[in-house]
């Protein structure tokens, strides 16, 4: 029995006869439990979100110069506005803001170039970002060459310091992380043991004790003649700590490279370091980017801990601003502002890493 020998036409799907209402039914009220959950969720939103919006947007004050310009009951964003420069640049001299801005601009454009798909010559941009860019940044921000006046590190602060700590931390941790990961996979027991111990110890202790050690105890361990800048010492602590985490990311990346790649490389006569440098690491690094971004997010958030050792990062400088008697009582605004800044950065990065992970995921199957 033939049903129909002609090809039936492709019809468009039926419009949901029940429209938005049907969607709501299917997604919110499909069963009793579901309905209860929905009501619960609506209640949560009602008690959680409504007052916040009222406080932060509707009743808030935006214009003015002093606290008298702020209405009671709403958020006083005036406070943030008047101190914004300080929150971004710390106590960096105002006349030199342009130097920091240049770095911000350069950094932003490099990042933009790196995350867009179709940038030509990505390799050289990566190399530029990892080598020349830090040098340029150093001379621009710190000065001391090309006729730029020196700006001491203790004047650095705010978002700028947060970014510097995080970026330097991650960039410097990468090579150490790679070495440690290679060491941990080594067949030489001494090196393997050392790297494993190093990684596990740094991963096992809280960052604030590491920062404490770096900031006030490090000078005990080195000869009196050698002096390090405080910021530099905090950075050393962060880099040590971070390289342990980075090593684990790298190890994961290395493990994902099939054994055949190692064999093919040795069969072609490449030596260990050439094999690593030309074949394994370039492939592994690509796989590691999501992991690196995630580590970076963690580090970025952790930079707020330098407050405990007296560096004026974004959180610390906002707190210092809150201590100003002229603005006493606006701490919520301050914290919300800091939270928002951190959130925007971290959320953006985590979205990027998720997208990347997805891409790599499909990329592997094909």
């Amino acid at each position, binding site marked *: 029995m033939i049903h129909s020998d002609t090809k039936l036409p492709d019809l468009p799907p039926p419009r949901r006869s029940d429209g938005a209402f049907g969607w709501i039914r299917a997604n919110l009220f499909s069963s009793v439990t579901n309905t209860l959950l929905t009501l619960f969720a609506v209640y949560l939103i009602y008690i959680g979100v409504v007052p916040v919006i009222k406080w932060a947007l509707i009743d808030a004050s935006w214009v003015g110069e002093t606290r008298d310009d702020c209405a009671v009951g709403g958020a006083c964003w005036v406070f943030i506005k008047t101190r914004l420069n300080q929150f971004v640049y710390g106590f960096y001299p105002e006349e030199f803001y342009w130097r920091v801005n240049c770095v911000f601009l350069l950094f932003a454009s490099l990042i933009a170039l790196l995350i867009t798909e179709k940038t030509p010559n990505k390799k050289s941009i990566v190399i530029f970002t990892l080598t020349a860019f830090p040098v340029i940044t150093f001379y621009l921000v710190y000065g001391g060459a090309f006729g730029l006046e020196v700006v001491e590190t203790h004047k650095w602060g705010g978002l700028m310091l947060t970014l510097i700590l995080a970026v330097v931390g991650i960039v410097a941790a990468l090579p150490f992380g790679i070495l440690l990961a290679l060491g941990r996979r080594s067949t*030489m*027991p001494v090196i393997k043991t050392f790297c494993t111990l190093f990684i596990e110890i740094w*991963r*096992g*202790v*809280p960052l*604030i004790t590491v920062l404490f050690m770096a900031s006030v105890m490090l000078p005990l361990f080195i000869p009196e003649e050698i002096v390090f800048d405080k910021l530099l010492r905090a950075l050393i602590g962060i880099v040590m700590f971070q390289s342990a985490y980075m090593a684990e990311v790298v190890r994961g990346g290395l493990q994902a490279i099939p054994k055949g790649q190692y064999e093919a490389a040795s069969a072609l006569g490449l030596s260990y370091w050439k094999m690593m440098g030309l074949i394994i690491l370039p492939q592994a690094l690509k796989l590691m980017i999501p992991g690196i971004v995630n580590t970076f997010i963690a580090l970025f958030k952790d930079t707020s801990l330098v407050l405990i050792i007296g560096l004026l990062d974004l959180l610390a400088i906002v707190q210092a601003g809150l201590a100003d008697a002229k603005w006493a009582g606006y701490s919520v605004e301050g914290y919300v502002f800091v939270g928002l800044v951190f959130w925007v950065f971290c959320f953006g990065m*985590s979205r990027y890493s998720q997208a990347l992970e997805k891409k790599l995921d499909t990329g592997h199957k094909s």
Partner: protein
Amino acid sequence: MPEKKKDLAKGHTAFWNDPEKRSMLYQIIMLVFLIICGAYIVSNTLHNLDSRGIKTGFDFLWSEAGFGINQSLIEYDESHSYGRTFFVGLLNTILVASIGIIIATVLGFIIGIARLSNNWLIAKISAVYIETFRNIPLLLQIFFWYFAVLRPLPRPKQSIEFFDVFFLNNRGLALPDPNFVEGFGWVLVAFVLSLLVVFGVRRWAKVRQDATGKSFPIVSISLAIMLGLPALTYFIVGSPINWEVPTLRGFNYRGGITVIPEFLALLLALSVYTAAFIAEIVRSGILSINKGQTEASLALGLSRPKMLKLVIIPQAMRVIIPPLTSQYLNLVKNSSLATAIGYPDLVSVFAGTTLNQTGQAIEVIAMTMAVYLTLSLLISLFMNWYNKRIALVER
């Protein structure tokens, strides 16, 4: 054992080209380098300590501390030693970390599962929760919770009361403290007895379910027995516990047990923050389970909750455990941020006040780090053991 003759032409091999000798050389160089570095640091430190007249050694642990701590699980006052402050801090760290781990795990699992709910609103709220708390520094959240907890609470005089025995105010939550008097032994006996009974009932219920398929409200009955029997005994024997109910005297409630706001804030911050990460782990763990498993369960007629409980979660655990372990480790380490709001944990009490009063930074920091390393190690060991156990079931 095969007899292994080491191979030919050994004599010809240049020392530098023999990989074994070469790796030996590397290792010796590394070792020497490490020893030199170590020696250098040690000698510098010794020299610096000496030239600056700083005392060393662990004698300080036995001298009187002289400062107060507002939460201690063991008996402590100003006249106790610095060594004891170490244990006070350690126990406080363990307290907040272990409760934090439990809450974070429960919350994380709930939210991770809710994230996959087919109720659109619930799924979205969970997503917002995760994305919010994951992306804001913990330190900031601790500050937030501290002031969020403190601000709405009244002063002690206007405390919020529950049943005249619990009092909530900005000094914390005051609870009655049980003092055991004679006759309490019977209650204990009754409790043990009730445990035995419950155990028996559960066995019986399981046998009955296996035999007849009828399920038995085990949880509620067990609870009733476990609470009822001791309570009955308690009244029969004549209330052998003197509840020391906190009373308002002077500035504050005295007597009883007080849960301080620092603890609450830290606990909230740690659990809420870590739960966001755990939720993501749970979600990806569940998603990692092959779609076929879901389909097979549905085709067998299992409902969604049962499917999660019987099929998906047991398999997902294998994927979940390793990253979960590192979240636990993070939580323990993050508990050291207690120092920011003055919760008396190890870092705050020992690596803070004690270090400052004694000035013996090296000893104190070394002890502190050793504690964290040990805790990390213990957690890792336990989780690895657990992972092995479930992995075995799986195979």
